[in-house]
C-alpha cells in the first residue's frame, strides 16, 4: 500500500519532468534507426526478426537503466526528503519497491511505444507474433533487473554521476559475462559466469521465442535480491547517520 503511494509519486515524477522524455526520445531514435536498417537489410531476403527491438534494448538498457535510476535516491538524499521518508511510518523495502515499480512502469510504457514497430511489421508482412511476445516479456523482465542494479548504486552514493557510472560498469560486466567462454578455458567456470549474465537468460531463450521458467526465476531473483540489498543499504545509512 505504501509502495503504491511511493510508486504514484515516482511515476508522476517521470511523467512531469523532461528528463524521462529525453531518455524516451533517445531510445526511440536508436531503436527507430536500427529498425529501419534491419528492414532495409532483410527486404526480400529474410523474414522479419521479431526480437530485433528487444535485442537492441537488451544492450541499450546497460546505459539507459542507470540513467533512469541514478537520481532515484541521490536526489532524495540531496533534497533531504530521504530523512522524511525514513521517518514516515513506512518500511525501507516499501519505499524501494515503490520506486522500482515507478521506474519499471516507465520502462513498460517505453516498451509499449516500441510496439509501433510490431504494428508496422504487421502492416507489411506477417511477423511471428508469439516469438515477438516472448522477446518482449523477456526484455520486460530483463529491463526490470537492470533497473534494480542501477538502484543499488543510486542508494550507495549521493553523487548521481558516480551512481550512473558504477551502474553502467556493473551492467556492462553482467552483459559481457555471457562471453565468459572466450575468456575462461574452463567450461564450468564459463558456465557459472554465463549463468550470472543477463544475456545468458535472454539472447538464447526469450529472444529466440522460448520462454523458460528458470529465466523468469533468474530475472525475478535479481529483482528481489537487488531490491532487498537496496533496502539494506538505505537502512545501513540510518546506522551511520
Amino acid at each position: 500500500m505504501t509502495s503504491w503511494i511511493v510508486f504514484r509519486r515516482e511515476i508522476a515524477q517521470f511523467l512531469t519532468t523532461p528528463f524521462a522524455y529525453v531518455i524516451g526520445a533517445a531510445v526511440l531514435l536508436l531503436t527507430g534507426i536500427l529498425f529501419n536498417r534491419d528492414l532495409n537489410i532483410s527486404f526480400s531476403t529474410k523474414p522479419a526478426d521479431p526480437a530485433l527491438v528487444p535485442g537492441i534494448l537488451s544492450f541499450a538498457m546497460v546505459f539507459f537503466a542507470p540513467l533512469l535510476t541514478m537520481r532515484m535516491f541521490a536526489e532524495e538524499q540531496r533534497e533531504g526528503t530521504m530523512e522524511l521518508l525514513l521517518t514516515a511510518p513506512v518500511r525501507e523495502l516499501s519505499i524501494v519497491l515503490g520506486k522500482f515499480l515507478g521506474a519499471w512502469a516507465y520502462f513498460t510504457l517505453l516498451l509499449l511505444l516500441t510496439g509501433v514497430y510490431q504494428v508496422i511489421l504487421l502492416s507489411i508482412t506477417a511477423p511471428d507474433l508469439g516469438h515477438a511476445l516472448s522477446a518482449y516479456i523477456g526484455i520486460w523482465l530483463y529491463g526490470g533487473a537492470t533497473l534494480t542494479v542501477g538502484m543499488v548504486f543510486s542508494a550507495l552514493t549521493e553523487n548521481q554521476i558516480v551512481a550512473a557510472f558504477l551502474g553502467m560498469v556493473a551492467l556492462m560486466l553482467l552483459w559481457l559475462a555471457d562471453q565468459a567462454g572466450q575468456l575462461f578455458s574452463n567450461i564450468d567456470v564459463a558456465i557459472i559466469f554465463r549463468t550470472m549474465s543477463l544475456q545468458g537468460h535472454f539472447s538464447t531463450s526469450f529472444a529466440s521465442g522460448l520462454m523458460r521458467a528458470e529465466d523468469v526465476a533468474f530475472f525475478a531473483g535479481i529483482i528481489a535480491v537487488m531490491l532487498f540489498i537496496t533496502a539494506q543499504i538505505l537502512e545501513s545509512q540510518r546506522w551511520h547517520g
Partner: protein
Amino acid sequence: MKRTDSASIIIRRRALGVLGNILGVAGVVIGVIGLIWTGAPGSTVIAAFVVGIGGILLWAVATPQEFAGFFSGRQVRFGTMAIISTILLIGIVALVYLQLLRAAWTFDATQATRYTLSPETERVLSRLSSPMRIIGFYSSRALTTREIDDQFFRLYETATNGLISREYIDPDEQPAIARRYGVQYDGQVFLANVRDDGTVDLATLARVPRGGAQERDITEAIARQLIAGRLTIYFDIGLGERGPLDATQEGVSAVFSGVQESGINARTLDLAQIAAQGGEIPADASAVLFIRPLRDLTDNEIQTVARYLEAGGALLLLTDVLFSEQPFLSERGAFNQFLLENYGIGALDAAVVDPGLSAQTLLDVISAYVFAESDIAARLDPAVNPTLFSVARAVDVKLSETPPNIATGRVIFTTEQAYGETNLTLLGETNTYQYDEGVDLPGPLTTAAWSTNIQTGAKIVLIGDGDFVANGRIVTTDGAVTVPGNGILFTDSVVWLTELSEEIDFQPQMYGQALPLIFVSQQQMDIIAFITVIFMPAAVLLIGIGIWMRRSRR
C-alpha cells in the same frame, strides 16, 4: 622471515567477525542448497558445511558480544542481520532457480513451434525402451552454441523421462575422450546407447550431423539407433549384378554404404551358390536386392526365391533392357512367368520411348505420373523430384484378376505419348526406334510396380531400370546429389520392403518456412522511416517539453 611489519598483520577483530559471519552463513546456505540439489551429502556439500561451521566459530570467537547479541535478539550494530538475510535470500533465489532449471518448464512461443518436438519425433521416442545418450563436445568458446543446442536436447530428455540423457564434454579439458569419440569440430554431437552400468556403449556411437534442421537430425539419429542391427539387407552378387563394393561410376557402392549408414546391416549373398548347394536365403534377410542381374534365374534358383517369399520375404528387382540371350526376367522366362502367376507383376520385353517427357534422348524417361497412394511414391513429386531412367523397361502389372491374396499397384507411369519398342534387336544394333502400330506397346506404360501377398507378407518391387542407382546417377564426384528422385525411389522402396516406414516416418520441420519475407515499396519504406526515426522521437520530446513548460510556469 622474522622481520614482519607489525602494522600489516593487524587484522581488526571486527573485520574478522564480519568475514566469519559471511563465510558461516554462506557456507551453511550453500551446503543446504547442495544437499537439496543432489539429495545426498557429497564432498562439496560437506566442504560447504565445514566452511560454514568454521565461519560461525570465527564469528563467535572474533566478536563474542555481537554473536551473543544476535542470538539473544538484541542487535548491537547494523550489518549482521543484513548479511544473514541477504545471503539467505540469495540462497532461496538460487534454490528456486536450480529447481526450475531441473524441472525444465518451457513454453514455445514461436509460430513454427520450433522448440516443440514434432509428432513424428514423439512417435520415434515412444518406441524407445533402452537408455540413450546425447553427447556433445563443446569447448568454452562454443558455450553459446551449447546453450542453444541444449534447449533441443533437453526436450528429448523431458519427453522420454530421462531415458535420453545429455552429457557435455569439453574437448579442451579432456582431449583423450574427444579423440576416442573422433571429435572433428567444436560443437560436435554424438548419439549412443547407454549400457546398464551407465556408461556409453561406444560400439553404437553415431554422429549427429549439424544441419539447419536440428530436430530432424537428432530424431533421425535416434531412429537409426533404434533400428540399428535389427534389419539386414542382402545385395545379390551371383547373377552378374552391379557391384555393391564397386566405387566406380558403374557400381552401387553409394547406396550400399547409404543403407549401412542408416543403421541397416548391408550384406551380400550369392543366390546361385546357395541354390547350387541346396541352401536357403538367410532367414534374417529383411530384403534381397537384385540390382540389374545379367542372366535369368534357373529353376532351382526360382524355387529358392519362392520359398523365401513364402516365408514373407521381400525382393527388390531392378531390371534393364538387355540385348542378350536369356536376360534377367525375360518376358517368356520361367522367373517372369513365376512372378506373373504368383504375384501379378512381371517385366515386358519392351524399351520405353517417351516423346512426351524425356531428357537428352527419347529413351531417357522422366517420371510423368506417380501413384502417391503407395508409400514408395509418396515422396516422389514429378514436378519437384522426378526420377530419370536411361533406357527404361516396361513393366506389366495385373491390376484385376490378381492371384489370391495378392495386391498390386503401379509406382511410376509414362505419358500417353509413350510406347514400348519391342524390336529390341534393332534398337540394340542401330539405336533406332519408331512406333509400329499393333506391334509396339501403346502408352502410357508402367516403369515401376509393386506387389504384396497379404497373407504371407511377401513383398516385391519391380523397377524397369537397372542403373538408376549406379554411383554415377546418384551423386557427382564432388558428392552433390544429381537426380534426387532416383535416390528417393530407391530409399523408399527399401523402406517399404523392410517395413521400415513404420519406424522412420519423418517430415523435417523447416525453420522460417511459415514466415513470409518482407516486401515493401520504397514509398512505404520512406513513410516507415519518417514515422519511426523522426515522428515518434520528436513527438515524445515535444510532449515532454510541453508538459514541463506548462508546469514550470506554475
